[in-house]
């Protein structure tokens, strides 16, 4: 891998596939065994892929107060909701059986309370908000508010705002506000997420190489 003076990354993937870790471990292939839904089959599971890393937003570039609406939408299918519950894993029939859910007083198949995680990672792939994908990111806490149930057929949009960032005991923190709306503009979820991130692109690149880089 080569990083020029402007911070641009060039990696020859044929020659150095992360020192062939992927090939040695086959971990991507292991995870692919669990891909059942249309979205799982199309989603890239390699967060170390250089062409994606170069599009991440890094801690030192985050602007507090900057807002964005994520261009990727999430059309909710029953298989998505069930795949999340299965991955948790939680076998509560409310998450798999629409008739049972209705019998229990819900108006349809119930989305697991943390289903918004799948939505977030699906839509946040680069630029503003890609912090959650950063190799080396840690999640020391979050607050989630549920305003309205997510339903099969919803088309979800996410809005983001960088809320705060600070340095404490040599670690680089940031907090953001995340809101999920449906196709009618109804607020479904509001969340305040906190992350500890590598500070710069160079630190992230050290992580990509497999070096420890959080206290850079």
């Amino acid at each position: 891998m080569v990083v020029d003076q402007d911070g641009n990354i060039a990696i020859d993937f044929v020659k150095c596939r992360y020192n062939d870790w992927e090939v040695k471990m086959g971990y991507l292939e292991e995870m692919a065994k669990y891909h059942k839904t249309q979205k799982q089959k199309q989603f890239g599971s390699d967060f170390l892929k250089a062409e994606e890393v170069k599009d991440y937003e890094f801690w030192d570039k985050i602007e507090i107060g900057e807002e964005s609406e994520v261009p990727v939408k999430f059309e909710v299918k029953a298989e998505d909701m069930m795949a999340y519950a299965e991955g948790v894993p939680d076998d509560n029939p409310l998450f798999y059986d629409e008739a049972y859910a209705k019998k229990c007083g819900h108006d349809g198949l119930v989305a697991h309370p943390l289903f918004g995680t799948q939505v977030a990672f699906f839509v946040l792939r680069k630029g503003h908000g890609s912090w959650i994908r950063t190799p080396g990111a840690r999640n020391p806490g979050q607050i989630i508010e549920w305003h309205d149930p997510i339903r099969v057929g919803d088309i979800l949009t996410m809005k983001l705002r960088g809320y705060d960032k600070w340095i404490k005991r040599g670690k680089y923190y940031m907090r953001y506000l995340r809101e999920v709306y449906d196709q009618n503009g109804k607020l479904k979820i509001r969340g305040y997420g906190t992350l500890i991130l590598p500070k710069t692109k160079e630190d992230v690149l050290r992580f990509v190489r497999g070096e420890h880089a959080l206290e850079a």
Partner: protein
Amino acid sequence: MAKKLTFESVNCGDVLPEVKQHIDQETIWKHAAGSFDYNPVHTNPEWCKTAQVFGLPVPVQHGNQTMSLMCKVITNWAYPVGGRMMRM
């Protein structure tokens, strides 16, 4: 369906049934597939040996998978009687 929960039927000090979950790398991989959180700190054991994001040479479980255990306590208890979580 169980009896509907009401404000009056819930008391401070009520203890809800515990939940347990065995965690291994396969469980974490399944969670990664379900959540699309494929961060190598959870999924790539070889990378974790050197990156040591948490000071440990092994992958760690997703924070949301831990949080899901707290959710499960509530969803097992309240969701079958029409309840919903509002904030966590």
